[in-house]
């Protein structure tokens, strides 16, 4: 479980960083998306990993704090998702504006001289 999650986060981060460093705006956006997924998973994992556990109460057990899933990382992830979603949408608009104004999808607004 831990291994799969770590690998997932690692692969997402690696791909995200690689895409972020590419010269096309669309690649940059996809890179940012992948990075934000990785970060969301990472935040989520800080609450500790349990498989097959109930979120709040276990059947047939008295409710103790030990059985609770930590709610704070979930709240943080939710906030982070909303914020990164909104900013990515804004970035898409800026990307389109940049494409329209400069006529190229290069991040610097002009093709590099070859």
């Amino acid at each position: 479980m831990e291994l799969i999650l770590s690998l997932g986060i690692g692969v997402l981060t690696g791909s995200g960083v690689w895409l972020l460093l590419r010269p096309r705006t669309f690649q940059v956006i996809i890179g940012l998306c992948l990075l934000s997924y990785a970060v969301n998973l990472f935040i989520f994992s800080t609450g500790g990993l349990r498989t097959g556990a109930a979120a709040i109460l276990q059947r047939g057990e008295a409710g103790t704090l030990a059985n609770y899933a930590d709610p704070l990382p979930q709240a943080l992830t939710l906030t982070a998702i909303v914020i990164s979603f909104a900013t990515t949408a804004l970035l898409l608009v800026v990307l389109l504006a940049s494409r329209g104004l400069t006529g190229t999808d290069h991040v610097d607004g002009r093709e590099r001289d070859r």
Partner: protein
Amino acid sequence: MIGWMDHLVIAPIVVPMLAGAAMILAGDRRRRLVVGIGGVSLALIMALAIALLLRAQVPEVRIYRLGDWPTLFGIVLVTDRLSALMLVLTACLGLAAFLFSLAKWQRAGVYFHPLFQFQLMGLNGAFLTGDLFNLFVFFEVMLAASYGMALHGSGVARVRAGLHYLTINLVASLLFLVGVSVVYGIAGTLNMADLAARIPLVAVEDRGLVEAGLAVMGVAFLIKAAMWPLGFWLPGTYAAAAAPAAAILSILSKVGIYAILRVWLLLFGPEAGASAGFGADWLLVGGLLTIAFGGIAVLATQDLPRLAGASVLVSSGTLLAAIGTGQAAVTGGALYYLAGSVLAIGALFLLIELAERAREVGADVLAVTREAMGPGEEEEEAEAEETGVAIPGILAILGLSFMACALLLAGLPPLSGFLAKFAILSPLLGTAPAPIPTTTWLLMVALILSGLATLIAMARAGIAVFWVGQASRVPRVRVVELAPVLLLLALSGALTLGGGPALAYMQATADQLHAPGDYLRAVLGARAVLTGGTP
């Protein structure tokens, strides 16, 4: 137990939020109403900030529990001297930029005023919060509004610079999140005071992880503060932004400095056990490199807006290096420098737009912008207003203001820039152990050389604009555009004249920051009071 005065703490966040929302409801077309709401909101923010500053004179730190939740479950807002100071600076700069935008920049695009209010909300929130994740949220509010502000007026240059600005800040936000979650994973809390209390107790094997998490978070702050090599985005973005937007953006880099001051001094102060002073060398060396880079950038730039952007870099570097020395007396000087440089750089950004008009470069850009935005009737209205009052002797006033900005930024007497540099350097030499460390010498050299570089560059630019360029037409400047510049410069002047009390306040602030015991007691003590007092 809580009087109405205590509720004032949250008002600097609520007022701009409500004002911004009301502006959106009113619609962008009813400009008089929108401007009226904005004016009322800014007047309220200013009054609140001053009230909080007056309340912050006492040594105790005041906290405000949102929703009256017990401290560690809910979020707390904290007002101490530093946050009150930053609120007042934001309000001054906000007022100036708001007045300036009334002349014409508000017409260069849609929804300038609501974005402006949300920007103020984010700034005020970031200065008040006592919780790391809440700090992230207010950072995002502030940044989301600043993206709109940086792009305000559209045009190729702004969109290109805005794209870089957006991408870099999104990455910085992700780094912030990674840092926050690592810290939460180990320490189990995000309340800054609680975290500070737990840092010394962290197990040895986890210490590296916590420090790494906080370092990652620090990188996010340093990107905001534009430390070399994380600050290449800054001059281009600020130069491309519309003048009032650039003025308010210029305090965003100070938010990074504020976050470092707050979090670093709280968590890695002398009481932090094994982690005390973690990262001080990085701040010092990074600050020195930033000053060097900023100084070279100041000398190398040809156009005025980039010159102002480069001087933001110099001031960031100076602050970082001064904080990195880790002495309370130096931090006091640095805070005085911060106040002066916020006012001076804000005035410079506004002034540049007026001065560029004499060279007809800015006028061209604005004309293109108007064309792109297109609404014909608005253009006529603007033209009609532009033929209104023109101030005589405008070049003389602009030239003198520019000179004042140059003196402030270069740190020459008699203005506050000189006092600030003196206040930073004097304790460095006065309290240092017998062999003065190399970094102190380097800092002195860097401060003096960067002042010289600023002076040369500003003198060159001033000659080009006000002496050589006089053959071109006299710029038409309206009172409402000149007043904010003069207001900011007058405030700088007041800071100079009241140097004694101001420095005393800054020193008290620095002492409070370097001995976070009060802060911890205020935040964590409230928990004890509450658990004892409620059933």
